[in-house]
């Protein structure tokens, strides 16, 4: 009866814990998962994780076994044992256990150094991209010898599969942290510092990244996409990005463009090929070619675009885009204009 509480406890807790632990194996896949590596670095990091995981699990089980055995003995015996000879024996056991722990830790440390060497090595012929973290979106600038081809885009980058990409990063306002779990760990973007990291995707796919350093109201909605695709697709995409924006093709779009130029939009946004030259908000030259809007918050489709322009503060309270006050005809016009910016 004395042990009722404890037995009940184990009966309840253990299955739950075990179930929870098992879930670790299952469903690691995902487009924002550290355990679904898509690049050489995240692959190494996930190997490191599994090494750690197994070592720690074994240690955990061993210690728990020792605990249970200790409890079994301590329960059964009539009076405590204290005679010094046995105590000294136990001291030796403890010394041994400590020694083993030290060895394990040392091995893990070595493993960590090896992983580090591989992960931080400098890649060859990397694609250069400048990254600027801003509250609460990402600005990307592709490096290129000719200034005309230094494409600026926002919240979505395309990279060729198998080619390393070097990111040179800094923050325009507060500290942010760039993290694409499927490709690599995170690195901070800090005002006054220029940090670098490189990524590489070994299989095509769309991987989601998110800001990992608390950066204010909309830290939760500061995501972006990395689209890894074949070289041809990438070049096609890049060529398209180099072009100026498409001009309106019908009356409604005409109207939309005119609204864009006369209303607030032009104060912050840039559309290359028009006289909208704002550099304070995402470059919209090829908005329609992106999968998401509002820094990975909404799917880029007709309705979302409309809602966002009409009342962005409802979707992302505190973000820097003021409510446009547009509605009805005007809203439709401006949306149709933007949807044309492929």
């Amino acid at each position, binding site marked *: 009866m004395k042990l009722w509480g404890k037995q009940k406890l184990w009966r309840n807790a253990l299955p739950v814990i075990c179930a929870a632990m098992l879930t670790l194996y299952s469903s690691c896949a995902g487009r924002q998962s550290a355990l679904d590596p898509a690049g050489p670095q995240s692959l190494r990091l996930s190997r490191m994780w599994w090494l750690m995981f197994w070592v720690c699990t074994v240690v955990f089980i061993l210690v728990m076994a020792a605990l249970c055995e200790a409890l079994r003995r301590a329960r059964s015996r009539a009076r405590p044992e204290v005679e010094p000879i046995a105590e000294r024996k136990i001291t030796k056991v403890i010394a041994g256990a400590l020694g083993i722990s030290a060895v394990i830790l040392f091995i893990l440390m070595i493993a960590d150094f090896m992983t580090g060497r591989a992960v931080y090595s400098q890649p060859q012929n990397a694609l250069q991209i400048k990254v600027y973290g801003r509250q609460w979106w990402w600005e990307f600038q592709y490096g290129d010898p000719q200034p005309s081809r230094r494409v600026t885009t926002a919240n979505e980058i395309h990279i060729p599969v198998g080619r390393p990409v070097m990111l040179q990063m800094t923050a325009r306002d507060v500290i942010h942290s760039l993290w694409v779990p499927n490709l690599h760990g995170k690195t901070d973007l800090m005002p006054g510092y220029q940090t670098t990291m490189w990524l590489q995707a070994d299989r095509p796919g769309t991987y989601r990244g998110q800001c990992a350093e608390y950066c204010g*109201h909309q830290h939760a909605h500061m995501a972006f996409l990395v689209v890894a695709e074949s070289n041809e697709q990438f070049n096609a995409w890049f060529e398209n990005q180099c072009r100026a924006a498409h001009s309106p093709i019908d009356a409604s779009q005409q109207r939309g463009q005119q609204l864009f130029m006369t*209303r*607030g939009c032009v*104060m912050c946004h840039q559309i290359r090929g028009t006289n909208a030259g704002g550099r*304070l908000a995402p470059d919209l030259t090829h908005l329609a070619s992106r999968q998401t809007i509002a820094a990975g918050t909404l799917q880029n489709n007709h309705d979302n675009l409309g809602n966002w322009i009409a009342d962005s*503060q409802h979707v992302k309270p505190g973000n820097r885009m*003021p409510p*446009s*006050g547009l509605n009805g005809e005007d809203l439709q016009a401006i949306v149709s204009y933007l949807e044309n910016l492929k």
Partner: protein
Amino acid sequence: MRSLPRITTAITIIASVSVWAACEREHRRFDDNPPSAAGNIRQSELQPGSAQLEASLPGPYEDNAYAVSEGKRLYGWFNCVGCHSHGGGNIGPPLMDDKWIYGSKPENIYATILEGRPNGMPSFRGKISDQQTWQIVAYVRSLSGQLSKDVSGGRDDGMNYKPSEQSTKKEQPKSKMAEQP
């Protein structure tokens, strides 16, 4: 020990009372629609004399630190710096002194931004929202220490060309028309 509950209850009462008068300074107003001052703009422009007398519409963000800081950001974003510099003035008149050509009251500044003024001040009507305008108004007034110190902003994270707004001493605005006999 026995008086501990007494004390705590007293504190909670004080606290909950003060919630009613919760600090306007700290509200983060993301999307509210401040009144468009369109009504008395014209007046204060055309008949400044009377405008001085009549009860003037207070700026909605005079006590809101968040709005002031947003105003500061927009002041930079919309390139007010280009002409007014960081308040010291250059092409445009300085904003941190006590001289106010078109009046120092919130709605005067609001009108100035919205309608523009002769000799270069462009009109931002339709370009920036009412809320943004009022935010800029609040910031511009903080430049000459018109707002209370706990609302005005501190130093910038950047080159500091002037003392921060909260350490700017309050100028007594002299409107140009006011100077006329």
